[in-house]
């Protein structure tokens, strides 16, 4: 299933929230694409906009938020002759409550969340919830749907799938709930799985089980994965390409090897140096990033990272927003790599 065409393409996406304190530019001009069968890791600290980017693709942004600019294009492959034709769907133009997006959501693009306890309904059995998706997207009857649900649960390594079908979420352990969640997401054979911190709430041995499972399933089902996490160890293991986000913007986009071996952006470098390592002794102190993420109502002018940046160029970084520059094989948004920046832009 290697296809040069992207499966999903995000161009200049801006998702803003109007709240009492002001306007929050949660996602502020983000562009990337995901090819089928590929895993894109999205890394960043809380508030960097990684989850809102995912919610924008799913059109699940809360009412206070709105996609104000940009385009999200989904290329629907015809499974019989995927090479010749792809139907182009403009996700941004769809009604978020309309039938088209509901057809895509859960069917062609599925999502796994961090906390399975809050994403499952507590009053319906696992079987009911997985089969509902199948009946909706695959036109199955209840009996077929339950059969397929059990099959998917078996595929995700659940020991007694038929018993799990009749269980309520609270009767399962954290790891089993997360497996059920993945089973539900995979039951309709999505072409893109968006995983938003799917193992953050789990213990490390359970996390290991889930990561292995996702890699195995991706290999056999050929879906693309957008893997959102703050854990650099997890992306190193899961992703082919990585985007690093800071305050609603991408600061660096690189292959997994380039990002870890030759990080370009000062923020990426600082992040990598600030994590304690299980496989290495770090002498003395960790390198920490000074200050903290500014609050989202008053994002600094110029490069959003400049107040914390050790390589700040006064007069440039605090004034001009950096454009993306190609350095080696990475895309970096930093003035260090672009000595002659374009004209001063109007701050938004």
């Amino acid at each position, binding site marked *: 299933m290697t296809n040069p065409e992207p499966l999903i393409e995000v161009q200049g996406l801006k998702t803003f929230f109007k709240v009492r304190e002001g306007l929050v530019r949660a996602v502020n001009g983000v562009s990337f694409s995901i090819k089928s069968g590929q895993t894109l890791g999205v890394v960043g*600290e*809380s508030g960097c906009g990684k989850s809102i980017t995912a919610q924008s693709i799913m059109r699940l942004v809360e009412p206070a938020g709105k996609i104000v600019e940009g385009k999200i294009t989904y290329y629907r492959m015809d499974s019989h002759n995927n090479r010749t034709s792809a139907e182009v769907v403009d996700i941004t133009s769809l009604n978020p409550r309309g039938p088209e997006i509901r057809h895509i959501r859960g069917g062609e693009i599925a999502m796994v969340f961090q906390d399975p306890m809050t994403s499952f309904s507590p009053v319906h059995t696992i079987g009911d919830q997985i089969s509902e998706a199948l009946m909706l997207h695959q036109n199955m009857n209840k009996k077929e749907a339950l059969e397929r649900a059990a099959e998917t649960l078996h595929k995700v390594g659940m*020991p007694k799938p038929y018993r799990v079908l009749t269980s309520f979420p609270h009767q399962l*352990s*954290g*790891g*089993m709930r997360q497996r059920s969640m993945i089973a539900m997401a995979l039951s309709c054979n999505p072409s893109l799985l968006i995983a938003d911190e799917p193992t953050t709430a789990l*213990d*490390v*041995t*359970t*996390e*290991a*089980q889930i*990561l*292995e499972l996702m890699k195995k399933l991706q290999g056999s089902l050929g879906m693309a994965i957008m893997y959102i996490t*703050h*854990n*650099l*160890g*997890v992306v*190193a*293991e899961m992703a082919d390409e990585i985007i690093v986000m800071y305050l609603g913007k991408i600061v660096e986009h690189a292959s*997994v*090897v380039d990002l*870890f*071996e030759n990080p370009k952006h000062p923020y990426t470098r*600082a*992040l*990598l140096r*600030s*994590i*304690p*390592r*299980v*496989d290495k*002794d*770090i002498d003395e*102190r*960790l*390198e*920490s*990033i000074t200050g*903290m*993420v500014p609050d989202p109502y008053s994002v600094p002018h110029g490069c959003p990272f400049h107040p914390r940046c050790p390589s700040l160029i006064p007069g440039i970084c605090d004034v001009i927003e950096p454009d993306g520059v190609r350095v080696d094989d990475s895309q970096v948004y930093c003035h260090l790599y672009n000595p002659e920046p374009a004209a001063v832009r109007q701050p938004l």
Partner: protein
Amino acid sequence: MSDQPNEDNLILDIKDLRKHFPIRAGIFSAVKGKVKAVDGVNLYLRKGEVLGLVGESGCGKTTTGRMVMRVIEPTTGTIRFKDRERGWVDLASLDRREMLPYRKNIQMIFQDPYASLDPRMTILRIISEPLTSNNLARGKELEERVASIMEVVGLRPEYMSRYPHAFSGGQRQRIGIARALVSGPQLVVADEPVSALDVSIQAQILNLLQDLQKKFDLTYLFVAHDLSVVRHISDRVAVMYVGKLVESASKKELFHAPRHPYTEALLSAVPRPDPHHKSTRIILPGEVADPANPPPGCYFHPRCRFAIDICKQEEPILEEICPEHFVACHRAKELSLQGV
């Protein structure tokens, strides 16, 4: 435990500590069984040392930490603590009132910087609580001590009259640390102090904890699930599984040459920030044993790839297989396991 460090260099010596929670059911709430949350733990801490206590959720690491603070009452066992002023005392044998004078020397830092600070109290009141409740300072002196500890942890003393909501997660954790240190404790129980923080803030707080340890000659019992953090901050590490200690050793030995198969699996499971790392991950089958209904023999045997007959029948005891390396495994001496 023959080769144990002596009475002079220790500050805490825990022996056979247990906490069994009753399971009640039925209309008369009859006791139907018990959850052995902590079941016979032996630990010691040297003065000025950091002991990392690790394990997965439900293994009893937090309960152990809280028993040292006597926030949770131990069922049996001894917790000997060497108080700066009063010498050795068994904390487990004290009643509430007798415990009070020792509290200023044992303090705790909590995981959640949002839940552990009362939103209706000013920062001054929060940080000064260990002083006021023990009548250690009042008035001007109280404020001065709070101001000076705020400065030490990197908070501006002018913020003393503000309320917690005005602070970010990292700053709140600094407030929690200031509260723990204001009374000048000897021992600090830190329960997952950085797990709720973002990566860049986590490094700041870990550095702060290390600086403070040197500055005030503190001893930390550092309870955490993140093995990378534990490797960074600890001198020795103890691993718990279903209420029991399965292994404890110096950091170097535990990470390079673990002797318990559970430790080995735990280390192998941690995702490494290295795209070239070839995963030699050991996937444990099944789930953690139920502490209310544990399997016979070694609690880990149903998931252990080295289990033999004896593991299913006999419970292994914690043995010192080389100096200061304790393991509870029947096959510890013959296995050669992989570290990181």
